[in-house]
């Protein structure tokens, strides 16, 4: 299959994903919807912090928590966005079998559908960061951000999250009613174990060990370093020991491993789903 045909399939899947995400309402309401959710999620943390510190926000810990939480929006949305496609297209729209019958690669289709979620997430992250900088004294200076490091780490990190999404899509192919639960469980586990909203050091030792094995831990830390600079290095003793370059290397290594594993796992799950006739199952869940 020619590259331009892959691109055409990818573009169509992205367009379809975007339509499903956004055309349930008018653009204005959709814009309001896109703003309210991330801001409200961030404000929960802000008020938790304000209640304890009695109104003080300009600290390193606050910036650490806020920025970690903002970038985490990608994790939950992209994981759910990619894996839910299998369930939605198989059970709800009953289209999955036709996708397999058409001359496109399922990978391309999943990536395209996930792209719409990624785009919505990017807007949410940007809104949360701008809100933090403008109203909550989060020290995000436009000219202080290390943009090459930010975009490099962002791309590697997103590749890792997409790989996790593909693994979950594989799980959804061979299960009937766990799609939502599994992706939420993985996203929730990342939120807790990767130290998204607190320094990893406050977790018990066994949980720290799991957190240190997950690529998202290094990704979130790398995003914080790129956005906030050296100010936050002392907040986590554990991750503070790693330099920016070391963080990026660990992230790259674990992401490559994850991408390979996700490919092998998805192929296995797909094979199993075909053998067991699961590609067009409908269970009303």
């Amino acid at each position, binding site marked *: 299959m020619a590259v331009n045909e892959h691109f055409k399939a990818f573009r169509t899947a992205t367009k379809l994903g975007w339509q*499903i995400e956004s055309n*349930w*309402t008018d653009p204005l309401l959709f814009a309001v*919807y896109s703003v*309210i*959710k991330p801001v*409200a*999620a961030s*404000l*929960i*943390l802000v*008020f*938790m*912090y*304000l*209640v*304890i*510190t009695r109104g003080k926000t300009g600290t390193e*810990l606050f910036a650490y*928590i806020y920025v970690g939480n903002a970038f985490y929006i990608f994790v939950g949305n992209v994981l759910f966005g990619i894996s839910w496609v299998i369930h939605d297209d198989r059970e*709800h*729209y009953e289209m999955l079998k036709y996708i397999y019958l058409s001359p496109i690669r399922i990978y391309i289709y999943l990536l395209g559908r996930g792209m719409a979620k990624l785009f919505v997430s990017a807007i949410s992250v940007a809104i949360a960061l701008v809100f933090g900088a403008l109203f909550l004294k989060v020290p995000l200076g436009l000219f202080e951000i290390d943009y090459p490091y930010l975009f490099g780490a962002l791309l590697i990190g997103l590749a890792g999250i997409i790989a996790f999404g593909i693994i979950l899509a594989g799980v959804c192919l061979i299960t009937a*009613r*766990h799609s939502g*639960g599994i992706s*939420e*469980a993985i996203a*929730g*586990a990342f*939120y*807790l174990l990767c130290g*998204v*909203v*607190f*320094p990893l050091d*406050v*977790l018990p030792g066994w949980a720290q060990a799991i957190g240190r094995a997950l690529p998202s831990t290094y990704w979130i830390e790398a995003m914080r370093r790129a956005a906030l600079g050296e100010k936050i290095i002392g907040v986590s003793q554990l991750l503070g020991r790693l330099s920016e370059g070391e963080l990026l290397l660990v992230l790259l290594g674990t992401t490559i491993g994850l991408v390979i594993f996700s490919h092998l796992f998805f192929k296995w799950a797909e094979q199993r789903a075909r053998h067991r006739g699961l590609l067009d199952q409908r269970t*009303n869940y």
Partner: protein
Amino acid sequence: MRASALSTNLRAIWARAYVRVVGANRELSWLFFDTFLPLLGTAAYVFIYKAMQAPPEFTGFVILGGAMTAYWMNVLWNMASQFYWEKEMGQLELFLIAPISPMAILLGMALGGMFMTTVRAGAVLILGSLIFGVKFTVQQPLMLALIFFLTMAALYGLGMLFASLFMLYGREAWHLSNLLQEPVYLLSGFYFPVRGLGFWVAAAASLIPLTLGLDGIRQLAFGGRGWGFIPPEWELAILALLSIAFISFARRALRLMEELGKREGRLTLRWQ
């Protein structure tokens, strides 16, 4: 209402509740996810307070808030959006042509949902309290039970109202339920005392029954009157009023939306 109609409606309430009471607990993986998932998020919030070296009662506040999220999720996804799912599966028209009041269906959904969720919320509360060593100092247990009961009545009354209003929605129902998660966690003070939002915002947020319910339970279960918004006695009275108001609004809204749906032919639309 004649005796036979009453008995038919009571049977309808039981039948709709039965599906939730028995059916939901048959899928054990869901029981696991519904307990495990709120615990993960709740644990993260506990660790934020630990990182901030907050007073120990805040761990209890968070665990209680985490347990109560199960009720709000149930109201959003299994009450408000329920008629959307029923429409997708072709059940809504069956409910409406059956010789019963649609309110019986809503009440059955609410009672079944309340039972199903209490099992999950209880598990989160017990496990969370054990894991993080939460200490309860319960004052006035009767008042505490009354506040909880009236919170449930008002909350599921609100759920019945939402179900009526959402009845004609297609995918909007899914998105609106999604939208009402985080903002309500924020406004109702699921993870911090609602007083922290300031008096007027907290007063406006009191229209959501969980705001006053959570605040009252926290004051009575953790001796946290210093963090309370208004006295629990007032909260009890307001919750009683909210219960009556929401259930009666739900009844009117249901009648209105059913009529509108029939006129516009939207009661049987799928894949909107």
